[in-house]
């Protein structure tokens, strides 16, 4: 029943359209690209569509016959509606807030040049690797009535949830938009200024439209992350604010109410598809190609009118560092005294019986897995980004491409529990008995990172004038070479950014990893969860110290990536 049949029409080899409907030189590469797209599609089919389909089938076809009796019941519950409403508005608000804060930061970190910029770029990514429970604990420590910010009275309200949304996702906006912004030619802005537009008007009428595809991309991601947020909502909302995701979790893991879960999953899926469609439309209507002129696009030193953006950046960095600071402080304390004991224990495999390996070994595991996952995510992500950035003339193929674009976002919009359990029930037959295979960990992490990679690269790729490729072709370059010439150099920095991102995602990934990782080869987040759910100050202390280590490792890796010089790409 579960034999994989991943042959979507999207990739049927052949001409990309009716004969002659496309510039001749692209047709050959069209076939190659179509074939290349099969690889990520196969991944998507096996590791996402199949499991989710399996779970939905279990829900709706319990005895092999369609049974929709539970649908009205689930939809009729007051709780369902409340949960849907909260999911919707909190995600929207979180997305907006993240954009508002993230755009000035992206500007400051990618358009201005000042010392420490690279480090700050790395710092904003840090939240992405922090386990949600740790972050939840830190937020609550700050905001609970006994905490330093307890007087605000935010504990248990929705405010910290929104703050956490921003905290986690600032990096998504900063990196996705920054990667695009970094390469924009300044002259479009100059020409607006030369027509009398003040800096704000320039930004609104020229810069923002140019960035719009990246902004929409980032917003889509953030919305998906927020609307499927699980740990932070539970921890910070104190159960008052259930989301669709928490509800599905509850129905699946507690009640084993697969039908109820399936109904909610379909609801979630429909909402996600709707959102992706709207986003794709918004992106498409704002898309236009832009000249990219290396030297003129280069960042400049800060000027007086950059002060607001710099102030917001300082605020954002402070905001990111505040919970992290409290994390560092608590990791250095045990029993009311300052100590390095928590860190010392990390290197000692025998420090606690809870762990089978020392945290140092877990760091090794994490790094190794993250490298694998990053490679997979980047290879697949590049293929997908290239495929979806091409513009076939035929409307049919354009729709296929747009569909592909969205397809790889779907995994973010579906509950991890659904995918995880789906895995167990569908991939249980040879040759796809992958349930206990160690390759699954990096693969699953890569599937999580893939949308981020695609969303970082696609807007940039689409903004490159196709005539650049044509110019190369017109000088005799075969399609791949033409793409490399025209797009390689522009893509170099965004690829770096995406690589760092993918790396951070897989370092921090917990949901799928906890499900799939072998107990003797846990990653750092898995270890942190094991530690933090045990009684005893030393376990909590070690968990916090391990979180600090994870953060430091991440920031270091990011900072190194930031420093990589990509000048050599310019020489083809």
């Amino acid at each position: 029943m579960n034999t994989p049949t991943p042959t979507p029409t999207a990739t049927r080899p052949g001409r990309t359209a009716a004969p002659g409907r496309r510039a001749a030189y692209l047709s050959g590469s069209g076939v190659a690209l179509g074939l290349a797209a099969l690889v990520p599609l196969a991944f998507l089919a096996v590791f996402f569509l199949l499991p989710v389909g399996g779970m939905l089938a279990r829900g709706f076809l319990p005895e092999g016959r369609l049974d929709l009796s539970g649908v009205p019941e689930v939809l009729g519950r007051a709780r369902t509606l409340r949960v849907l409403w909260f999911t919707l508005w909190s995600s929207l608000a979180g997305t907006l807030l993240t954009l508002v804060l993230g755009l000035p930061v992206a500007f400051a970190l990618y358009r201005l040049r000042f010392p420490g910029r690279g480090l700050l770029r790395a710092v904003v990514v840090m939240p992405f690797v922090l386990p949600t429970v740790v972050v939840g604990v830190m937020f609550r420590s700050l905001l609970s009535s006994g905490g330093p910010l307890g007087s605000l009275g935010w504990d248990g309200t929705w405010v910290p949830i929104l703050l956490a949304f921003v905290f986690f996702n600032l990096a998504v906006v900063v990196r996705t938009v920054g990667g695009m912004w970094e390469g924009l030619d300044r002259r479009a802005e100059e020409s607006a200024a030369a027509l009398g537009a003040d800096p704000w008007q320039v930004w609104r009428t020229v810069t923002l439209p140019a960035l719009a595809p990246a902004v929409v991309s980032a917003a889509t991601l953030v919305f998906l992350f927020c609307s499927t947020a699980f740990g932070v909502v539970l921890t910070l909302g104190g159960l008052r604010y259930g989301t669709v995701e928490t509800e599905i979790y509850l129905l699946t893991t507690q009640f084993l109410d697969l039908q109820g879960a399936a109904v909610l999953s379909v609801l979630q899926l429909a909402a996600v598809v709707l959102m992706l469609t709207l986003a794709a439309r918004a992106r498409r209507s704002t898309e236009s190609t832009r000249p990219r002129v290396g030297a003129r696009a280069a960042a400049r030193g800060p000027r007086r009118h950059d002060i607001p953006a710099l102030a917001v950046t300082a605020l954002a960095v402070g905001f990111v560092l505040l919970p992290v600071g409290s994390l560092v402080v608590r990791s250095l304390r045990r029993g009311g005294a300052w100590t390095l004991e928590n860190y010392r224990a990390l290197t000692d495999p025998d420090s606690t019986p809870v762990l089978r390996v020392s945290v140092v070994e877990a760091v090794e595991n994490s790094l190794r897995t993250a490298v694998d996952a990053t490679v997979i995510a980047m290879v697949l992500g590049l293929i997908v980004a290239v495929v979806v950035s091409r513009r076939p003339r035929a409307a049919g193929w354009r729709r296929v491409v747009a569909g592909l674009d969205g397809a790889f976002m779907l995994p973010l919009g579906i509950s991890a529990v659904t995918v995880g359990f789906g895995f167990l029930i569908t991939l249980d037959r040879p040759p796809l008995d992958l349930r206990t295979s160690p390759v699954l960990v990096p693969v699953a992490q890569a599937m999580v990172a893939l949308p981020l990679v695609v969303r970082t690269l696609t807007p940039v790729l689409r903004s490159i004038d196709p005539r650049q490729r044509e110019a190369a072709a017109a000088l005799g370059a075969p399609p791949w070479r033409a793409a490399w010439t025209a797009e390689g150099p522009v893509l170099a920095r965004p690829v770096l950014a995406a690589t760092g991102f993918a790396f951070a995602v897989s370092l921090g990934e917990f949901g799928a990893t906890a499900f799939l990782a072998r107990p003797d080869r846990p990653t750092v987040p898995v270890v942190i969860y094991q530690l933090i759910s045990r009684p005893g100050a030393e376990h909590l202390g070690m968990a916090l110290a391990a979180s600090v280590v994870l953060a430091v490792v991440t920031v270091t890796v990011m900072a190194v990536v930031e420093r990589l010089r990509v000048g050599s790409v310019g020489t083809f």
Partner: protein
Amino acid sequence: MLQLDEVTVRFGATTAVDDVTLSLDEGQVLAVLGPSGCGKSTLLRAVAGLERLDAGSVRWRERDLRGVPTHERGFALMFQDGQLFAHASVADNIGYALRLRRLGVAERRRRVDELLELVGLPGYGARRPATLSGGEQQRVALARSLAADPGLLLLDEPLSALDRSLRERLAGDLREILVTTGTTAVLVTHDHDEAFTIADRMAVMLAGQVVQEGTTAEVWRAPATREVAEFIGFETFLTGAAADTVSPPARRVGAVSPADRRVGTDAPAGPPGRIDGSAGTDRRVLALRRAALRVDPSGRLEGVVRRAVAVSDAVHLTVDVDGVGEVAALGDDPGHHLEGRRVRLALDPRGTAYLPG
């Protein structure tokens, strides 16, 4: 041979290239002239394989190019806006095609330096395109397409951003290169003199269609339609009595008065051949360039100067000639002295042509 048959390219409702049939022998250079937006660039892109044909075919050396991707055609196209690779140095841009052909570094460098020299940018190799002026960028783009040493060179306004003297020099050099290498070329240009300097043949496009094609001199002297004539600089169009007044039928062939043909030597006179075949028809239109009528005290025509505008090396007059009406004419000195005066005008038949009515 390059052979275009009924080539049509549409963009939605716009027909950018409309049923164009053209052929060009190898080693020849064709200049495509036409007003802005008439489809010149689209035509070039279609030949290069960058626009799909909605109808018709492009053949090169007897081979139909349908389905042959751009990079396999062995052509080189210089884009109207250059399309330099912003991330590569000037030298890498120019050497791009050579690199594709895996030419050695030393050889490539030599060739790039040669081309930089040719376009007047020696020592610019290490620069980035963004740091170049508009004209410098255009010259780099030209050098890049020349480096490809293609079977067919397609140039889209290669010299439009250059000042006159550089343009003239480069046009001469370009002609020389094309001739010595025997390169077949199609070039789009706005500049009539450039077309004359570089090209053997000329095609005039109007609204997507090639309305006239022939040797440069032919087109110049015998525009096929009034639109073509207007486009290549004829400004005054006369029929019937007015035409006869300016150029009396009796004098049309050979019999030009000394005053009218003073500067002429022994070249074949007057409007070209077709006149003879249709001498009796009144429906033909006499077209005059401004230079066809010059202020000359011994001229045969007389009129009142209505307007006089000094340009760089002449004065443009509008003269109301007795029995003819307003015509464009050429004065010699700054015009404020002339307005309202009566002047005599002499006809220079080399500035005249007869068009089918």
